[in-house]
């Protein structure tokens, strides 16, 4: 029977049902946001340009192994960078990979790291409108993220409030290389606005704050930089926990995006161990650090861990919590995870459906 044949083979396209929590849309050129920028800022861009706290503000902190950090097969025939073509995104990713919903995570221009705070806020406003006008209105499967310039909390909160009731947006987005560790009180107005509006705060790897990308200083190789995303996320987590952010904002939900997964159980256990001994330094914590993580923090899956034994992946998911994992592909970036092949472990149909769709459906309240 044909149905048995289908079941024996690899999952077919029709059977895949995916919520992709990390899709990177790109612009063909900066002029795409000009309609949403005040003339003053267009002129500012022309005269002064973008100012980030690192050399060559159009560059990444490290050269990637692949131009634009992109899949080689993701360049649109009509020109433009990977991620700039909706038709290619559809034909190459959304359609064949069964993407029912996709979360837009725009990264370019890094408004949260702009040294000119007013320009950073203006950029977030423009890029947020751009996400809706250029993407969500043309592709109902996509959802926008409320980009904020977190170093200006007044501007950030105003942008959150302006977008909070717009169903095109599902979450707040910032990058973790902030001027100070993310749990510091200067950022609390953002968390307060997030909790008040029941919007998750997504923290996607990236940002340029002028600090070296590793605790040991600037690394030599992109491979080291790529590992450093995990230690960046560790400092985000410990800061949020030990500063008492989750104690102060019990409704706050945070998504750690693209930081890897393998370190989470050991890092949580290490925080717990230290808390048992040093609790009196942070008496505002009422519970163990791992409890705050388990209750308040979700993690996107890409780049998926590939341990030598499949059972180790299952063990990892058990320890993080199966309900805390949100599937993501990172399209169109080079380390894209394919929903058919990303999990190198035998999963039941129920587990697969939970990871690929169910968790994100419940988390974002969509579908």
């Amino acid at each position, binding site marked *: 029977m044909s149905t048995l044949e289908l079941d024996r083979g690899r999952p077919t396209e029709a059977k895949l049902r995916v919520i992709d929590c990390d899709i990177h849309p790109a612009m063909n050129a900066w002029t795409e946001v000009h309609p949403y920028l005040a003339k003053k800022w267009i002129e500012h861009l022309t005269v002064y340009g973008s100012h980030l706290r690192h050399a060559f503000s159009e560059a990444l902190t490290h050269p990637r*192994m692949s131009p634009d950090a992109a*899949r*080689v*097969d993701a360049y649109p025939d009509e020109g433009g960078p990977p991620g700039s073509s909706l038709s290619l995104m559809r034909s190459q990713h959304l359609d064949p990979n069964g993407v029912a919903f996709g979360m837009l995570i725009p990264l370019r221009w890094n408004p949260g790291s702009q040294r000119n705070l007013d320009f950073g806020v203006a950029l977030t406003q423009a890029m947020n409108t751009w996400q809706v006008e250029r993407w969500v209105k043309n592709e109902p499967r996509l959802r926008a993220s409320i980009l904020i310039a977190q170093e200006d909390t007044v501007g950030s909160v105003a942008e959150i409030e302006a977008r909070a009731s717009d169903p095109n947006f599902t979450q707040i987005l910032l990058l973790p290389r902030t001027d100070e560790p993310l749990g510091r009180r200067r950022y609390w107005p953002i968390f307060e606005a997030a909790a008040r509006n029941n919007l998750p705060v997504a923290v996607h790897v990236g940002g340029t704050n002028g600090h070296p990308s590793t605790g040991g200083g600037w690394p030599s190789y992109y491979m080291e930089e790529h590992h450093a995303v995990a230690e960046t996320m560790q400092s985000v987590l410990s800061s949020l926990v030990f500063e008492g952010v989750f104690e102060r904002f019990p409704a706050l939900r945070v998504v750690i995006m693209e930081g890897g997964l393998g370190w989470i159980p050991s890092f949580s256990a290490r925080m717990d161990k230290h808390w048992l001994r040093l609790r009196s330094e942070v008496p505002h914590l009422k519970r163990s650090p791992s409890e705050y993580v388990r209750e308040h923090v979700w993690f996107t899956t890409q780049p998926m861990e590939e341990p030598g034994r499949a059972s180790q992946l299952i063990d990892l998911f058990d320890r993080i919590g199966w309900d805390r994992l949100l599937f993501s592909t990172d399209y169109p970036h*080079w*380390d894209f*995870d394919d929903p058919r092949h*990303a999990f190198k472990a035998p999963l039941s149909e129920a587990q697969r459906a939970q990871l690929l769709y169910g968790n994100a459906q419940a988390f974002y309240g969509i579908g």
Partner: protein
Amino acid sequence: MARHVVATVDDIAPGQRKLVQVEGRDIGIFNVGGEFFAIANRCPHEGASLCKGRVVGLVESSEPGSYQFSRPGEMVRCPWHGWEFDLRTGKSFCDPRRTKVRAFDLKVEEGAALVEETLLRAETFPVSIERQYVVIEV
């Protein structure tokens, strides 16, 4: 196993590749400086199309600070995660035992010889005696 004519030699310039379908399989034919190789198109890691990858040489090092570059154009890098596959063997450089693609036997043959061959699978491919053809065994 059968022999299949999949291209003329002129179809694939040096440094280029062509994706062909033979008996339901996607196979990449690569021309490396006039020498032809055939490997399965699907990356064993997450399934990307290897024909869309960049063709590179082999960079090795005997010690930190020294580099050797050899075999230009004989490796293809997966267009997604960058796994390097040896076009001669289909084996990946980093994990040759477990992460590999099938390499197919390939020959370049004269059309004059091929037209005599009765078991040849070239139903959709007219063969003329004065040209050279890429023939793979699948």
